[in-house]
């Protein structure tokens, strides 16, 4: 793939990442089919940058985030973090790598252990890696709680005593306390109220500015992604179909799927008329993806070539990657 402008400033480089989930069946529980959740995804993130990842349910966004952190084992590909292959790291190497790569989850209710006081949940990483004395850990937890807009008095409380937004802050605090370089934000605001979403997004923005964090920001809400990202990748059925800077992508989407997504963003002004692109049919099954371009059964531009030839993910304009035979601005 062509996204290999491999410079040292890339904090994270993902090359041709694949994840197939086996479907077992029959008497001997053999693998009868595979769900191709990720089928050759490549991208890179520069230090201090936010890469937004969008796509509809089941397109492989979350799988990407988790595979990058090796929370689920990949089926193929490479993930380079500061030049080191995460997927091949030994378990002791992995332990140290994990300090630099953290994750914030979608569901603030499920991501905190209900039986452990939040202070201990936040300090868990420090405990695991034996960082500091218990007293120092307490101080760090207090600091980081303060940083996310809570206070140290909350440390002894249990998750059920907090609201969704507060819990999401606790989740962020848990990631922050490790002083990571990369945080994978797996739909961190999609479970929150709109007003709280803004607060959490601004918090993430401030933290990035102050601490020089790098985000892989997964979302299905384009407005959220537009708000927070420097660059945006669009995924469809386990593939990256378009990757460009935020402005390029939102001003001049090239892939028909991206165009369809853009046309679905609700506008706050009801008097504006525009052409809404309605896609026909459903997302095909990732067990048996369409031949050629995966989007061709739903694409209004599709020609014969789309049924046979898988389009290459290539740079059509500087910094603007698209996988489409008929990509146009």
């Amino acid at each position, binding site marked *: 793939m062509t996204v290999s402008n491999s410079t040292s400033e890339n904090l994270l480089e993902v090359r041709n990442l694949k994840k197939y989930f086996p479907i077992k069946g029959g008497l001997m529980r053999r693998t009868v089919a595979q769900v191709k959740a990720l089928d050759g995804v490549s991208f890179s993130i520069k230090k201090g940058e936010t890469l937004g990842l969008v796509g509809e349910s089941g397109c492989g966004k979350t799988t990407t985030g988790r595979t990058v952190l090796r929370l689920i084992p990949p089926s193929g590909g490479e993930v380079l973090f500061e030049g080191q292959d995460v997927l091949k790291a030994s378990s002791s190497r992995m332990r140290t790598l*994990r300090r630099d790569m953290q994750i914030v989850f979608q569901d603030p209710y499920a991501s905190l252990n209900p039986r452990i006081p939040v202070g201990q*949940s936040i300090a868990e990483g420090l405990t695991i890696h034996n960082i500091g004395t218990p007293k120092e850990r307490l101080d760090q937890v207090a600091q980081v709680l303060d940083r996310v807009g809570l206070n140290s008095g909350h440390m002894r409380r249990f998750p059920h005593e907090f609201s969704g937004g507060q819990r999401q802050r606790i989740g962020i605090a848990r990631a922050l306390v490790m002083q990571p370089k990369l945080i994978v934000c797996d739909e961190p605001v999609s479970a929150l109220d709109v007003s709280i979403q803004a607060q959490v997004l601004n918090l993430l923005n401030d933290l990035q500015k102050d601490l020089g964090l790098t985000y892989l920001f997964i979302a299905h809400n384009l407005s959220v992604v537009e708000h927070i990202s420097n660059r945006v990748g669009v995924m469809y059925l386990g593939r990256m179909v378009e990757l460009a800077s935020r402005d390029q992508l939102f001003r001049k989407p090239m892939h028909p799927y991206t165009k369809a997504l853009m046309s679905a963003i609700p506008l706050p002004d009801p008097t504006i008329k525009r052409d809404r692109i309605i896609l026909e049919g459903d997302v095909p099954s990732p067990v048996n993806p369409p031949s050629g371009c995966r989007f061709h059964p739903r694409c209004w531009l599709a020609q014969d070539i789309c049924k046979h030839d898988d389009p290459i993910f290539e740079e059509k304009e500087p910094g603007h990657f698209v996988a489409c035979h008929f990509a146009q601005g």
Partner: protein
Amino acid sequence: MAVSTTQVEAHEPKKEEYERPWLEVLKRFTRHRFAVGSVVVLSLMILAVTFGPLFMPFGETDSAVTKKDQPPGTEYTLPKDLYYNSIGGEVRTPKGTTLTFWLGSDNIGRDLLTRLLYAGRVSLYIAVAVTLLSELIGIIVGVMSGYFGGLVDAFAMRFVDFLNTLPLLPILLIISTILEPTINLLILILVFFSWTGGARLMRGQILSLREQEYVSASRALGASNLRIMFRHLVPNALAPNIVNASLALSGVMITEAALSFLGFGVKLPAASWGNMLKGVNTTILEKYTWQAFFPGLAIFICSLCFNFIGDGLRDALDPRAKR
């Protein structure tokens, strides 16, 4: 009344008060009257069997040959040439004292109350030991099986299936002819056959819990498998096993009684509630009812209490029952 006060409390929770998960459980448990009553009754029984024998004038195996099969309340004056209750060689009851068989005497003239207390020690010890050990093994096997899945799971669960197909009684019959049956051996054998239920329960819980995001979060922080299993998964999965354990207590007690009744359990002259029922037949039931009635009553009360406590725990530990 009590009901109205709890309602008032429910409507006005104190703000400063932190609701600790286990405190909450305790609160809900205390609302289950039968369960609380059972805790009281059971505590009294445990106190009685622990300290009661020290105050009895009879020893566990002392028999008054002339006073076989006496009904409750029979009085008995110690013969001039007999000392009683010579525990550790120390004579406590002087000659000529008049003693009472409060619950009658058995077929060789031993005091039924004394034996009932000694028997309670053995029976409760076996029940508690078997339950604790088998839950411990069950939890460890279950958590490994559910967490690692795959081959570990397949092997562990097929072994559980295999154990569950083995008939307990015939096997115990064979073992008791080969090995000298002691109480600890009996415990080990019962544990071997009874950990499977706890393992299955735990496995089922783990299967649903291991997909929770806080597990992924912990892994992302670099937590080891052991830490994830025993710090995050087990505490959250424990409730059904606690309930299972309290119900298993009565089950073990009854199994022990059945085994002793059949002669594979606690060997005479040591007493257990089960072997006190040994040899009960229609004659005894008709003529010496008390000999079967009191040990039976003890087993009945204990298993009833354990079951009530189990019920209470199940309700108290159910997170959906908030009030």
